[in-house]
């Protein structure tokens, strides 16, 4: 995470996400998947091809791509389909876009009710007998049962969570890095799924994105760094107010 300053002098915290060897693996049609749109399987970081069953390796062999550590599914409309085997780059996103980031949160193990659900617990003194971090009452008398989904101690973390509506401030095309506003679920160097935001406020935010995706061998030559219009670039002189 790094600080980034705007031209008005405000500071924002930014997370760096690297696009490492991403390839489109498979196309699943609307009828096959049974959903409303077609699906595209995309694979992430390269991994070792050993110690995996043949059925899992089939997908990678058909696409002609080394084995990937993370596979995620994207719902895609028919006009945005990409041929399996094409590499995906960070320039697929542009600064000024809004993005949702999904990842597995940091696992905290078996945790009590105060840390997991934020219960208040009991006072430390004034006669409390062996009760300082317990949940207290779990149901009423009339219910005469405990409702399903009652907040109780258990394993915390290591589940998929999404951070919605994060702004993309800057993109580095040379190293394939996306600078995303705010914090992102997951530990450092964990694998993450980035998707165009589905929030209704950001529906019309993408003006001329690379469609269906950014092809590196195409005619477009992008500069090494793409900045949002409000970002203060370090080549400019210091900010002054008039």
């Amino acid at each position, binding site marked *: 995470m*790094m*600080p980034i*300053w705007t031209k008005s*002098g405000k*500071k924002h915290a930014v997370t*760096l996400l*690297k696009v490492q060897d991403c390839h489109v693996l498979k196309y699943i049609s609307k009828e096959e998947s049974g959903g409303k749109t077609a699906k595209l399987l995309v694979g992430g970081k390269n991994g070792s091809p050993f110690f995996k069953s043949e059925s899992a390796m089939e997908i990678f062999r058909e696409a002609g791509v080394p084995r990937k550590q993370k596979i995620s599914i994207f719902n895609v409309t028919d006009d945005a389909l990409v041929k399996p085997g094409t590499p995906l780059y960070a320039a697929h996103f542009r600064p000024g876009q809004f993005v949702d980031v999904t990842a597995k949160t940091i696992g905290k193990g078996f945790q009590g009710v105060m840390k997991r659900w934020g219960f208040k617990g009991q006072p430390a003194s004034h006669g409390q007998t062996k009760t300082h971090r317990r949940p207290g009452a779990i149901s009423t008398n009339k219910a005469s049962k405990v409702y399903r989904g009652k907040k109780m101690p258990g394993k915390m973390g290591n589940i998929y969570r999404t951070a919605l509506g994060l702004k993309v401030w800057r993109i*580095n095309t040379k*190293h394939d*890095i996306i600078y995303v506003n705010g914090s992102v679920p997951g530990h*450092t*160097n964990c694998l993450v799924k980035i998707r165009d935001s589905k929030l209704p406020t950001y529906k019309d935010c993408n003006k001329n994105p690379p469609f269906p995706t950014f092809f590196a061998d195409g005619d477009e030559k992008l500069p090494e760094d793409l900045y949002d219009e409000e970002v*203060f670039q*370090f*080549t*400019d*002189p*210091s*900010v*002054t*107010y*008039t």
Partner: protein
Amino acid sequence: CRTSSDGKPTEFQPPPKPIIIDKLKQIEERRFLSPEFVPPRGRTDPLKFYIERKDMIQRRKVFNIPEFYVGHILAVTTADLYAKDKVNRFVGICIQRGGKGLGATFVLRNVIEDQGVEICYELYNPRIQAIEVLKLEKRLDDHLLYLRDALPEYSTVDVNMKPETHLENDEIPVNKLQVRMKPKPWSKRWERPKYNIKGIKFELPEKTMEEAKKWRQPWLEFDMLREYDTSKIEEKIWKEVNEELKK
């Protein structure tokens, strides 16, 4: 002309040659790498530090950040929306330098009209217009947080001080000042060996000093897991930064 005791004229003795000490050549170039360039110990990808360093060097090319340590007296001018002339100038002693990478900060302390004021500035904030070093002097400690509990005369700095000049490759003088403290209670127990403060003149009774030694942890210096040798990393980064800045 002078004659010796014999009466014969003495031979002409040429005067001894003057010894020229070329100070510029003798003194080795002092290597200073700002502490925020050194990456902290952790499991982050070194690529992230490389990219952050590129940004930091880019900023240093446009705006000069001078070499300074804890104990120097600095004057910082920032752009402030709500100040007269939109510019704010603050003079103070640098108490501590924290943070790594682009978020590196330094805290300046001064006593203005009997009120102690500390301001934490970010080195790479684009709002900073100028950083001038008014007085160069290192102190005995890494941080001067104990100035909060010292007599206010040790934290007062004249706001209209003129900058002192110094040579490029001179050694930075170390001020071995022993600071006198206000009566206890202090914000932290500075006499304890954990803080390892050498710049305070402890006027406490011997009993307190003996009791403070109870918290000594003599095994800490032998702990191998705490060792973080940065000499090689610093050398590499210093070369990289110098090459980029000369371009």
